[in-house]
């Protein structure tokens, strides 16, 4: 039986207890999605992106970068970064198995912004240095 207590349930999300992970984020592939209206999908993602900005949740995002520059994505992302954050760029495609990343996600306490890049791209660091601190994690 559910018992009422004057405290929030620990399954509720707060900006301090989670990391927002964008998995396989490929906006150019939205045309292929038939299970949801693309405009609705776009709106929903905007909703989450703004929520991430308002509540300053940590973010982990993988950039699809095999033959594409990550710069346009980063420029868009920059609009949502309203406070100085640290950015940890993993330069390996299978970054999800990196131990430091896993540890960070598991604790859910990081305020870092994790981005994955393909190894073939140089990090566009100078453009972002003003708003985010960049460090590398191989």
């Amino acid at each position, binding site marked *: 039986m559910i018992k009422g207590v004057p405290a929030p349930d620990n399954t*509720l999300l707060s900006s301090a207890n989670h990391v927002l992970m964008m998995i396989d984020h490929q906006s150019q592939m939205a045309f292929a999605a038939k*299970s949801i209206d693309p405009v609705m999908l776009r709106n929903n993602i905007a909703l989450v992106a703004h929520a991430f900005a308002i509540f300053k*949740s940590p973010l982990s995002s993988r950039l699809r970068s095999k033959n594409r520059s990550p710069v346009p994505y980063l420029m868009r992302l920059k609009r949502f970064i309203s406070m100085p954050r640290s950015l940890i760029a993993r330069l390996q495609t299978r970054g999800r198995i990196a131990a430091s990343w896993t540890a960070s996600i598991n604790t859910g306490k990081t305020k870092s912004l994790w981005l994955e890049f393909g190894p073939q791209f140089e990090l566009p660091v100078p453009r972002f240095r003003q708003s985010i601190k960049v460090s590398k994690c191989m």
Partner: protein
Amino acid sequence: MYVIADDCGDFTDETYEWAMERMIQRGIRPMTSMQYLLELQRDSARVGTYEVVTDLVNKRGVPLELALPT
């Protein structure tokens, strides 16, 4: 682990439903974008973010006129 179910798409309804079902079998908690936003806000008494969240709901949430039966 939570999955924002209406932030994903798939080729057909069937493939989407079964992808979600597979994740649910492994214990993920599905939720929606709006739940994500409002769960972070939690309480309208949190005045620091109340206005900007309300603004966002007005701009990006499903408009009331679409939610009502015609």
